[in-house]
């Protein structure tokens, strides 16, 4: 069983569209949507949820006003500015649940409580089981929820003897991305030939190198700016990152997306490009 995580650094490069189309052409797989901040994969794969679990990822400090003596120790020790200066109340959006205020409170007026931060769904799609999640806006434990999605996807894959786990990773380079990548056999980096895309790609390459995860490259909208595309290709070659495919800047893709359809169903050339990716994944991960 091999786990592949698709990431992009920059948002909007076509990561999710790529993942959905790739998933539709792969056999015997479990799909995981780890882009829990902006989960979009279900919009293309139309899964039917079969179970929901409430996710309690974060802890928050909760205050019992009756016990509080207004000593202000919680305010003094909190490093996240999560206690109000005026009346020592917990600011939920700032609290990181570290427990320092609980520790320093002389009257036990504070305690940590687990709070609901999102939901985890097990679902069935036309192309295989899918695990996805929804984070409550403002919750800060996307990294933990990402890990839950991966854990569940892996458990389902083992139980059903699947060959592949395909993960739609998070954008950026922070906590959720690192959680998406942890334990993956390979990362697919989806980029676009723009200076922003290139800049973000370099940062995300540093992250995969840091965690020693082999990576492959996909250049989306490659004919938008072939000069920058070539620079990206050369850069990746030097970094030992194989080019998996290039996808053109195409009306078919835009229109497919607007209709909620897969572009591999609407264009033979695009389909062939995606099929070649799967052949390369097979070689890279199994023959090696």
């Amino acid at each position, binding site marked *: 069983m091999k786990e592949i995580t698709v990431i992009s*650094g*920059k*948002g*909007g*490069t076509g990561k*999710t569209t790529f993942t959905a189309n790739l998933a539709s052409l792969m056999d015997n797989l479990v799909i995981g949507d780890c882009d829990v*901040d*902006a989960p*979009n994969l279900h*919009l293309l794969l139309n899964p039917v949820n079969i179970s929901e679990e409430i996710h309690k990822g974060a*802890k928050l400090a909760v205050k019992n006003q009756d016990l509080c003596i207004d000593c202000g120790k919680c305010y003094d*020790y909190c*490093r*996240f*500015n999560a206690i109000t200066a005026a009346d020592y109340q917990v600011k939920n*959006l700032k609290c*990181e*649940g*570290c*427990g*320092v205020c609980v*520790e*320093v409170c002389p009257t036990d007026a504070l305690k*940590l409580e687990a709070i609901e931060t999102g939901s985890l769904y097990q679902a069935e799609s036309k192309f295989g089981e899918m695990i996805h999640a929804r*984070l409550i*806006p*403002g*919750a*800060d434990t*996307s*990294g933990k929820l990402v890990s839950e999605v991966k854990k569940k996807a892996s458990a389902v894959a083992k139980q059903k003897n699947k060959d592949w786990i395909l993960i739609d990773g998070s*954008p*950026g*380079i*922070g*906590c959720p991305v*690192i959680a998406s990548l942890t334990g993956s056999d390979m990362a697919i980096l989806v980029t*676009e*030939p*723009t*200076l*922003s*895309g290139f*800049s*973000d790609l370099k*940062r995300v390459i*540093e*992250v995969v190198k*840091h965690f020693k995860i082999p990576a492959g490259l996909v250049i989306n*909208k490659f004919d*938008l*700016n072939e000069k*920058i595309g070539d620079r990206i290709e050369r850069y990746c070659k030097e970094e030992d990152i194989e080019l998996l495919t290039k996808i053109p*800047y195409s009306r078919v893709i*835009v229109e497919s*997306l*607007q209709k*909620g359809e897969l572009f591999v169903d609407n264009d033979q050339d695009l389909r062939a490009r995606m099929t070649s990716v799967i052949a390369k994944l097979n070689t890279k991960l199994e023959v090696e």
Partner: protein
Amino acid sequence: MKQEISLSILSGKGGTGKTTLAVNLALALDNVQLLDADVEEPNDYIFISPEIEKKEKESVMRLIPEIDEDKCTACRKCVDFCEYNALAMMLDNVLVFEEVCHSCGGCKIVCPENAITEKERELGKLYHDNQAKIDFWQGELNTGEEKAVPVIEKLKTKIDHSRKVIIDSPPGTTCPTIEAITDTDFTVVVTEPSSFGLHDLKMVVEMLNEIRQPFAVVINRAEADSDYLIEDYCQENEINILLKIPFSRKIAELYSNGKPFLDELEGWRAKFKELYREIREEAAKDERNNSN
């Protein structure tokens, strides 16, 4: 001196045109301060200050525990206390996993032997380029680091209210985004007319309503036959649409080369100025509502 307003620009997902809007709007105005708070993937510099690496910079540090093995009695109190599993017991030694540490300082407090001190570790950087018309600041998270919020907090200490402040926020609805928009007078949400765009717009709107932040929408990559996706939703929810930027290969190509489009397509400098005038009006309206 009369204070200018502060504006934050955000989107539900990346790649919808947040940077495009922030940069072109900033360039259309005078006396602007642009802060790129999208610290995981800052891109404004490409359009404003491509050589930012060579400009003024300062480090954003955080604190990491250091264990004095001579004093440590392996009592495990720090390991048990840490909510993030950043400390672990290996034989009789405490190991520190610096990357997952949140720098709360709790381990140092609970250690009965005073065996824990703290050292600084660089979390990110701020870059600064003060130009004739734009005072530009960029926050950047170091690769391998997880916590964007402290970098954004530090960036926001640079806000100069005598200028028109524009903050390019991280996309999404989680803490870094909320940190970036908190205390700004008004927020513009950039979206695009697709099922993805609508879905992510709804998530952002939910978050903005929760924190009671006044906002309006700009549609990027607008197209006559799909704009209804966003327009219908905004109408139902009484959300103002301030501007549409058309779907255009020309804009995409300019963007790819790191070029703003406001002077390349006719009339757009004026449109961005008009947009800012409207934003100011909306922000003032909201202030009146609040004081009533």
